[in-house]
């Protein structure tokens, strides 16, 4: 079943065409990779499917609903959660608070509940707390530590935990392994596989070729805002267009 279907997405910033006519579809339960040289438009595409940018043209379908111009919180509610290329945690709050905030979209208590602290609100608070602790245990991060005092790899994992707290159908990860060493990357890979086995579809931008090859079911390649290849990692790796995009054209002898 198709979870996310992009049809001819285009995005212009003034005269700059960041994306043109990008179409792709992601099946439920797969790990889909998006690669491309710097400036190819990968993050722009992520920002469109998470509502931070509005597409200039085209639209996308998620879980059966059409989206063209919408707001980030509605997409989070629909089931798309994301992490950011340059980590955007709530830096001065604790790990626990960060993940608890992730539960916001799946909980209901309002001002009256907060002021009156009725049974329902208290039960909900307890559930939020329990779920947050569970997720922190899952990614192995101490609950009481302030986010900005965590190590880089931990911050990345905390961002994933916070995204998981929104109960997503699709988890969009923007360069999750950036800046990680080999050991950290290996444990990240195991974590991502575990998340997929839990039934969550993954969509990731990544530069680490080894990670992409070992993890993704399918890969799309962007270059100058256009999709130039799509397929299994092996097929994409040997695609002449992809080699050209990364290494430049071979000179004619």
């Amino acid at each position, binding site marked *: 079943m198709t979870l996310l279907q992009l049809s001819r997405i285009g995005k212009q910033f003034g005269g700059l065409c960041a994306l043109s006519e990008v179409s792709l579809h992601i099946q439920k339960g797969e790990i889909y990779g998006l690669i491309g040289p710097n400036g190819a438009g990968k993050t722009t595409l992520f920002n469109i499917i998470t509502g931070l940018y509005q597409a200039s043209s085209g639209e996308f379908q998620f879980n059966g609903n059409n989206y063209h111009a919408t707001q980030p*919180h509605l997409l*989070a*509610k629909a089931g798309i959660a994301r992490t*950011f290329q340059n980590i955007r945690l709530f830096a001065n709050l604790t790990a626990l608070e960060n993940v608890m905030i992730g539960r*916001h979209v799946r909980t209901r*208590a309002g001002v009256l*509940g*907060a002021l009156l602290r009725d049974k329902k609100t208290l039960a909900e608070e307890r559930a939020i707390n329990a779920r947050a602790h569970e997720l922190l245990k899952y990614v192995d991060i101490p609950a009481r530590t302030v986010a900005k005092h965590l190590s880089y790899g931990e911050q990345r994992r905390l961002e994933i935990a*916070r995204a998981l707290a929104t109960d997503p159908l699709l988890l969009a990860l923007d360069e999750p392994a950036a800046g990680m060493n080999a050991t950290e990357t290996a444990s990240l890979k195991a974590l991502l596989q575990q998340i997929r086995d839990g039934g969550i579809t993954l969509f990731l931008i990544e530069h680490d070729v080894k990670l992409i090859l070992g993890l993704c079911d399918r890969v799309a390649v962007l270059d100058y805002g256009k999709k130039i290849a799509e397929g299994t990692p092996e097929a994409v790796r040997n695609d002449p267009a992809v080699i050209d995009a990364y290494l430049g054209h071979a000179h004619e002898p």
Partner: protein
Amino acid sequence: MQNAPEKRLHKLLHSRSFWVCALLLLPFATDALLGHGWVRILDFAMLYIMLALGLNIVIGYAGLLDLGYIAFFAVGAYCYALTGSPHLATAFPLSIEGGVHWPFWVVLPFAALLAGGFGILLGAPTLRLRGDYLAIVTLGFGEIIRIFLNNLNAPVNLTNGPQGISRIDPVSIANLHLNVTQPLFGMEIPSVHLYFYLFLSFTWLVILASKRLEKSRIGRAWMAIREDEIAAAAMGINTRNLKLLAFAMGAAFGGASGALFAGFQGFVSPESFSLMESIMILCMVVLGGMGNIAGVILGGVLLAILPEMLRHSVIPLQQGLFGKIIVDPESLRMLLFGGALIVMMLYRPAGLLPSRVRRRELGSDEMAEKP
């Protein structure tokens, strides 16, 4: 190990009943020790605390810098003044004879709601602004309200212009009129004392509400917006609605204290709602410790009471030393106040009693909290 008397003292300072008794006896103690003017000063301090706590929701929790906060206080005060005085009846002969005179329990929520509405009115056009830009717009908003109040005596005399509205009903709760001395258990409780207890209970309510909001789903969402608005939106927080809610909640607290102010004072005029007042309340929040309830209360008490102490000490001191008054206490107040702010920013940038989050933000806790 603590020794026994120290332990007992510690226990006493942490028992709720001790504090309740101390606060209940406070007006009598100040009367006996400092003189009769002081309970009135305490009453005003309490109003300031309520205002500072309301502003703390907007600034401390949601991170929205509001320099026109006094406007909501004005809305609440005029709301009480118009419904509780004969002014409307005399200005508009068609309305009810002698004014509407709603009971206190109707006016107070109405004033809070109306001020909350004004909060949304201010919030809606400024949703996309942050920091300095937001501060400038809110500053303008505060001035607009004051200027409206100042000039709305023509073509229709709604606010009676700069003369203000007088003959406002005092607060009366279930036939207990707070403007006259009331007998209780054989004691005579003066009016200012009665207002003290009224304000004390409302301050307690505002503190309770602030505390509960802080540790709730809504409070966490506000903190998320303050920390990183884009990440907050990506986590499914409706940043627009929650920012409006912060403005409305803060404004509602401001409006309620405005209504109490009008009932206490019996008179309102636009000059009580100048920009300087907004800045004073902001200073209470910043000086005490933004985002921390205890800090904000401390800031409110200090800034409301210190000028009075100054007034009571500077004039006699100068007269004793020079035989005349050389420096007016009002200008001395601003001088000391400015100095205090500079010293604060250098040595305690997060406030006298900073919140743990602000402390982390300003990096003075590196040692303490590193795992």
